[in-house]
């Protein structure tokens, strides 16, 4: 790990001048776009490929490769849809980027559009993020007025329109094809793939979909080069700065920028450690969809491949920390309730299975479970896993399986005691 890491994505956080175009430019903004416009579009794609940048929205797919799947040429419409739906429980990093540095995102989107010859970009933002939406709309207007967007981007002849599109409260619209359906004015039910969005995406046209944080990396890769980007991180496949959103039982929850691959222990220390000097019991490394890990993984490197090897996933890098007083059954029951509520209902295994998981976990938590419930939960997981159309189904079983596999004694305790043995979680006055 680099001795001294200077924040990249969050360098403007807390600098109100970054909210204006003038201020952003004084901080070096739009230099990446200006540089990209002097390059061949394919050279831009190559640079991003070389950087090793992987998607920050959940799946970790290489961004440059995704862009290279878009058919070449300017004759047919193409789109970029920026995924600002951020609804994965535990995730709040994209909001920080949008509220503090909107032009960084606009610049990243513009470079991507230039690279794939897209003339239209939609920033699909979750409906609840009204503040981010207002900030982005204002920044967009400034960018139009200054000729950074519109018919002649920075005098280059490249034409680009960019709009904010607000969702209306549905986690599944974060899934890329659910998002496309929603953008088109429909229920956000994921599509069957293939065809992939790069071939048939928004309005039937080739479409790139990238997460906010992914796109915010792009201006820096262009200005500072792929080699600089690759010098940060664990290895060739896990490169660059990364935002980690830490919540739960830590002393200072928040969004922290680290080189990708910092260990969980280092991250925990940076967040002030466990609150009230309590012991670590469990942590989720990548949002509600990621299997839960135990303290024996405290020295885990938090990058895509290392976390996957440890039997979980980095996902959106939403780290949820739980102390010794936490009831794992109650926690997982809450996550199952979430997946049940958010299942779009298209596939029977996901629609029915998430409902059953919630019911069984709820009765366990209330002391009404039986010895056979662990097996029942596993069999429900088996029926959902790999049997449903989008990744929500698989995501829903992650926490449940890890509960049964890694915390079997807690389930037993609930059954034996006929009650939950843990106290109810409490708030604290000013963390006191």
């Amino acid at each position, binding site marked *: 790990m680099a001795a001294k890491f200077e924040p990249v994505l969050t360098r403007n956080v807390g600098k109100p001048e970054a909210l204006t175009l003038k201020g952003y430019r004084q901080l070096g903004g739009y230099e990446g776009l200006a540089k990209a416009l002097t390059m061949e579009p394919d050279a831009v794609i190559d640079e991003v490929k070389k950087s090793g940048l992987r998607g920050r929205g959940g799946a970790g797919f290489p961004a440059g490769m995704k862009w290279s799947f878009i058919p070449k040429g300017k004759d047919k419409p193409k789109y970029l849809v920026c995924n600002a739906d951020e609804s994965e429980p535990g995730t709040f990093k994209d909001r920080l980027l949008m509220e503090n540095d909107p032009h960084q995102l606009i610049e990243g989107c513009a470079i991507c559009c230039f690279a794939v010859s897209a003339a239209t970009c939609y920033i699909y933002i979750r*409906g609840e993020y009204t503040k981010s939406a207002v900030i982005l709309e204002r920044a967009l207007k400034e960018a139009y007025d200054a000729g950074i967007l519109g018919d002649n981007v920075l005098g280059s002849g490249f034409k680009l329109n960019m709009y904010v599109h607000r969702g209306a409260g549905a986690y599944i619209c974060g899934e890329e094809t659910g998002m496309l359906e929603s953008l088109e004015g*429909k229920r956000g039910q994921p599509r069957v793939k293939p065809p992939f969005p790069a071939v048939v995406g928004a309005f039937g046209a080739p479409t790139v979909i990238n997460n906010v944080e992914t796109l915010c990396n792009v201006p820096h890769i262009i200005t500072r080069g792929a080699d600089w980007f690759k010098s940060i991180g664990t290895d060739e496949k896990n490169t660059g700065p990364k935002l980690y959103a830490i919540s739960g039982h830590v002393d200072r929850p928040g969004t922290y920028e680290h080189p990708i691959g910092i260990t969980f222990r280092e991250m925990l220390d940076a967040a002030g450690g466990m609150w009230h000097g309590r012991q670590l019991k469990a942590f989720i490394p990548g949002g509600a969809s990621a299997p839960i890990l135990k303290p024996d993984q405290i020295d885990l490197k938090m990058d895509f491949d290392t976390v996957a090897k440890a039997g979980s996933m980095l996902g959106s890098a*939403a780290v949820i920390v739980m102390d010794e007083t936490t009831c794992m059954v109650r926690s997982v029951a809450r996550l199952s309730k979430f997946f049940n509520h958010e299942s779009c209902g298209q596939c029977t295994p996901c629609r029915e299975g998430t409902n059953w998981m919630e019911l069984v976990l709820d009765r366990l938590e209330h002391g009404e479970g039986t010895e056979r419930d662990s097996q029942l939960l596993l069999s429900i997981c088996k029926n959902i896993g790999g049997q449903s159309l989008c990744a929500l189904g698989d995501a829903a079983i992650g926490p449940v399986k890890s509960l049964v596999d890694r915390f079997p004694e807690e389930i037993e305790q609930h059954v034996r005691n006929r009650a939950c043995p843990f106290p109810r979680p409490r708030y604290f006055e000013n963390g006191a």
Partner: protein
Amino acid sequence: MSVHEPASVKPPGPQTRGGGLSAASRAEIDGLRERYPTTEAVLLPALHIAQRQWGGWLPDEAITAVAEALDLPVARVYGVVTFYDLFHQKPVGRHRIRVCNNLSCQLRGAEEILEVLHRELGVGEDEVTPDGRCSYVHFECLGSCDTAPMMMVDDEYHENLTPNRVRQVLKGLK
């Protein structure tokens, strides 16, 4: 290009009855058409606009008005309205409270926050106080887990809540 401020950021309009979409709402919807290659894609923004005009929810009349404005079958519009959590088909309070009780908030006491609301407002979830002032619901993660427990009142986030903070916030609502 004109700036389109997100609909729900402006104060809710007076409850409109019988008149269909107001001229202002209609103009706002029409202004969005140029953004999309299809009219259908204007549906979500149009529903946000209509919901603001109708004081925070979408009675049948509002749904029909949007369907007509966009030349879509009414059933199509219903299908969309029922899919999304931010569209409401029954009356809501002048102030709409959403309490996150997903995991990160639950770990920091969100359940108690919901109980305080219940006690203070004297109504159940999704019901409106008799004076029409408030309604509240529990909600999935609102992207503010680092300030848990939290709730959203209309468009504003209230963070690091305690029962006292909740009571203060409620006092401030007209």
